[in-house]
């Protein structure tokens, strides 16, 4: 039966916690989540029932029908081979044109938004021009190989010499390549892994339409040719117009290709309506969809259905067809608000009810759930239980400082709550001005265990956009108004959204470095004894010679410096070659900066946004605390003894391990631990990164997070001085206390985290697990709101929640087939619990379920 929270005595009253939904009194704890999905219509219920999920688990696709497609590889290779001699950016445009002109287009039954990224709705496309190793990964696996496989092998091998990977590798020593590819001290560089991100400028397409963009490019070409032909030829001034003309020409080619491809979908809808469909209502729908595809994205969107279809076409091109990019970065409640207003409030175009709008957003969620790229096995492994990273952002403030929440925000949140899918995830920008109605919907999603929205501090992140703006190389960084328009680029890091200045490549910001593994190598003079058995980092001395804690700190700092320098160098080398061989004419066409200045999307950077993700930092930090306490302050152990114990995986050293395990830990408002950890985040992680200047001329700042890498790196890291055994998972996110060690209550965690100055960091992920009986009670929202207001006052960057009982997770481990709708927050993404490995499931279960006590209510000032 359901477990109610026990009553509490508070301010002279007995406080009871009945369930907010009385029906839950009779639902056992072990199956709560199976009763929560309420798709808005029969259609979305059907679409969810037949959704072609592309989730992976243990690196393998969960659904057996998923395979790699060959069509994209074939068509881009065909174009590239025949198109020699032209400027490279034109070749890239022609490559897209050939693909969109000849590829298979698909319309599935029942759907309201059309378009897919491969020739079969069960397939994923491949990207041989980015990473040949990621392609080979599919080709060598008969379960998922593209067919015919011999042709696929030939196509992949053609691209080896032309790939980003091959171009970039030549600038590194063999040792550097071995370290980079070992996935030990840092993440494999994007040029080898093929992983990328982008923030599309959807606004120009929704507001202008592509025909207008073509007109702009034609105008620029005409103007440039006039200058070229003007009297008194001046080479230094005018020769630079040549590559600009090439770029504008490539924009025209790519926009025309996208328009024609979208209209092919319209034609298909019409053919289905006239020749296949017998249901009159569906016929009518298909004809409407045909009209929509004819008009958008060629023309500006006029209603909400237009907007969603236009956005979906642009998404497919920029995330899957022109180039692979992870993400779904945009702010739909701002982007689509005028269209929501036209359709739902004014009913002037595509008149619909709010519920119709919710249904459309549910449809979009299901389209995302079916969409996946051909990522390498490595990346499939580190997003267990999901198909890729898709995070949209809501809330915050508008440019004029008014509340950014509106009825469109609510429709998107209701859709998420109702349909219950893991993707897309949602980031909510929390501002004190944000309306309560919307915050309550955020709460409902969190309470229902979706793991999202994750919450970002609006003010801190808006200020950060202004901080980075000062480094703009063309003095055109974010203005005061533009700084309000930001979104999560992927899981955590903010970046501008809008008509220009957005982050266009992961080489600008992204990728990870692993503090715990670097600490392990520091303790072994740069050697990795636990995984590769090779010298990974520089030789920074033997620990027995570190007379003071500062000696250890500085050796660790040098190891970190060596690794982070290599990381950012790899990203900027990649950027150098992306500019030359991975141009994105369509991405450039829809960016106002690229259009105005005639500069390509990879090359132009108006708003620096440099960042890198330290992962496993709390494992490292807790280890430093334990070393300082037990070796340097209490002098209970020597380093020699510690190293022996670690190399034995603590076997024979159980008492010693207990001491290290019980040393002060982060997340308990403990001054001893918190002072060291604060220094680690501010002086060490941030301090070292900010000494670097990246391609865009700005600093690099740390984004503490985890994705699934806290598990993968945990499995590649031996025992650590915080008491961890070899192979155990590391900490599950950014600044989150290590699983199970935050024992002093939810407000103690906030007090610890608030000690790290958020302005020295780009972002830091904070995972918390809150008591399900409290959150599901009729007082849940009040308590959570008070907690969130305190979080906000503390100027903490981020927080996200799991609300799920161990009973339910244990039941799902026993009978996974009965718990398909159980969703958990892993790190910067959510996943279906039953699609996770046992290793991953156990890390979620180990997270301490924070209960609220009277002292917490007093601290938060809650009135109950």
């Amino acid at each position, binding site marked *: 039966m359901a477990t109610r929270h026990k009553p509490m005595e508070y301010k002279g009253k007995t406080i009871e916690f009945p369930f907010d939904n009385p029906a839950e009194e009779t639902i056992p704890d072990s199956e709560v989540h199976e009763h929560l999905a309420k798709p808005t219509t029969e259609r979305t219920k059907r679409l969810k029932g037949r959704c072609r999920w592309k989730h992976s688990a243990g690196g393998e696709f969960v659904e057996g029908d998923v395979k790699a497609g060959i069509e994209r590889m074939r068509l881009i290779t065909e174009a590239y081979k025949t198109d020699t001699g032209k400027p490279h950016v034109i070749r890239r445009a022609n490559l897209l044109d050939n693909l969109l002109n000849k590829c*298979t287009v*698909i319309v599935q039954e029942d759907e309201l938004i059309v378009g897919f990224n491969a020739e079969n709705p069960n397939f994923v496309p491949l990207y041989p021009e980015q990473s040949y190793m990621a392609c080979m990964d599919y080709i060598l696996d008969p379960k998922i190989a593209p067919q015919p496989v011999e042709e696929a092998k030939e196509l992949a091998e053609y691209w080896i010499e032309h790939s980003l990977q091959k171009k970039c590798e030549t600038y590194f020593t063999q040792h550097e390549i071995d370290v980079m590819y070992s996935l030990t001290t840092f993440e494999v560089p994007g040029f080898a892994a093929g992983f990328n991100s982008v923030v599309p400028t959807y606004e120009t397409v929704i507001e202008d339409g592509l025909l207008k963009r073509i007109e702009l490019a034609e105008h620029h070409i005409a103007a440039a040719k006039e200058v070229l032909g003007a009297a008194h030829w001046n080479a230094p001034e005018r020769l630079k117009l040549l590559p600009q003309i090439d770029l504008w020409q490539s924009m025209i080619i790519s926009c025309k290709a996208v328009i024609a491809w979208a209209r092919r979908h319209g034609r298909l809808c019409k053919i289905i309506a006239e020749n296949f469909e017998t249901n009159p209502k569906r016929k009518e729908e298909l004809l409407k969809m045909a009209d929509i595809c004819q008009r958008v994205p060629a023309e500006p969107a006029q209603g909400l259905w237009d907007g969603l279809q236009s956005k979906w076409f642009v998404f497919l091109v920029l995330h899957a067809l022109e180039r692979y990019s992870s993400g779904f970065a945009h702010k739909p409640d701002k982007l689509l608000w005028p269209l929501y207003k036209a359709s739902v409030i004014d009913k002037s175009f595509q008149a619909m009810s709010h519920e119709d709008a919710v249904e459309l957003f549910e449809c979009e969620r299901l389209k995302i759930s079916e969409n996946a790229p051909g990522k390498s096995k490595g990346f499939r492994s580190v997003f267990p239980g999901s198909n890729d990273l898709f995070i949209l952002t809501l809330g915050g403030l508008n440019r004029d400082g008014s509340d950014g929440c509106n009825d469109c925000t609510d429709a998107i949140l209701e859709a998420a709550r109702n349909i219950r899918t893991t993707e897309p995830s949602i980031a909510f920008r929390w501002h004190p001005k944000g309306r309560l109605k919307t915050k309550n919907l955020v709460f409902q999603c969190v309470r229902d265990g979706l793991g999202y929205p994750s919450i970002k501090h609006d003010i801190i992140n808006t200020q950060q956009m202004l901080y980075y703006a000062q480094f703009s190389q063309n003095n055109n960084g974010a203005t005061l108004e533009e700084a309000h328009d930001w979104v999560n680029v992927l899981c955590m890091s903010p970046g501008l959204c809008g008509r220009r200045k957005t982050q266009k490549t992961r080489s600008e910001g992204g990728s990870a470095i692993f503090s715990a593994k670097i600490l392990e190598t520091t303790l072994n003079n740069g050697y990795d004894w636990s995984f590769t058995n090779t010298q990974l980092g520089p030789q920074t001395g033997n620990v027995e010679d570190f007379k003071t804690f500062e000696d250890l700190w500085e050796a660790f700092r040098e190891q970190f410096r060596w690794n982070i320098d290599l990381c950012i160098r790899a990203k900027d080398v990649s950027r150098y070659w992306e500019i030359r061989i991975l141009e994105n004419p369509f991405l450039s066409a829809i960016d106002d900066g690229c259009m105005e200045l005639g500069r390509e999307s990879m090359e132009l950077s108006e708003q620096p946004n440099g960042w890198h993700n330290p992962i496993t930092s709390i494992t490292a930090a807790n280890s430093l605390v334990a070393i300082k306490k037990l070796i340097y302050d209490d002098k209970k152990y020597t380093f020699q003894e510690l190293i022996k114990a670690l190399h034995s995986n603590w076997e024979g050293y159980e008492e010693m391990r207990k001491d290290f395990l019980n040393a002060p830990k982060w997340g308990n408002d403990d001054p001893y631990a918190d002072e060291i950890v604060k220094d680690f985040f501010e002086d060490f992680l941030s301090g070292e990164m900010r000494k670097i200047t990246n391609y865009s001329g700005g600093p690099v700042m740390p984004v503490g997070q985890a994705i699934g890498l806290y598990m993968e790196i945990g499995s590649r890291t031996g025992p650590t001085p915080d008491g961890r055994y070899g192979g155990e998972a590391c900490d599950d996110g950014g600044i989150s206390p290590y699983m199970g060690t935050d024992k002093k209550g939810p407000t103690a965690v906030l007090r610890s985290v608030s000690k790290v100055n958020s302005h020295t960091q780009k972002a830091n992920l904070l995972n918390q697990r809150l008591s399900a009986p409290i959150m599901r009670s009729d007082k849940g929202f009040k308590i959570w709101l008070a907690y969130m207001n305190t979080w906000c006052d503390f100027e903490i960057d981020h927080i996200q929640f799991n609300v799920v009982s161990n009973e339910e997770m244990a039941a799902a481990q026993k009978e996974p087939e009965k718990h398909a709708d159980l969703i958990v927050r892993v790190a910067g993404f959510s996943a279906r619990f039953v699609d996770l490995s046992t290793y991953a499931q156990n890390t979620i279960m180990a997270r301490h379920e924070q209960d609220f006590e009277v002292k917490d209510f007093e601290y938060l000032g809650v009135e109950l």
Partner: protein
Amino acid sequence: MATCEKCRSFYPIPEGEDDYAEGKGDCVCERKDAKGKWWDSKPVMGEATADKCPDYVQKK
């Protein structure tokens, strides 16, 4: 000889369309699997030979 334009799946692309070319059409097929139905469309030239096409069905 079987050619695409003789097949029931062949739909000539109307004049005025962005991708119009004389003799060009959409080859539209209905597909089905355990999850449900979909329709796919690929561009073909009407005169292309369809002898080996597994989806070829002569138009009535």
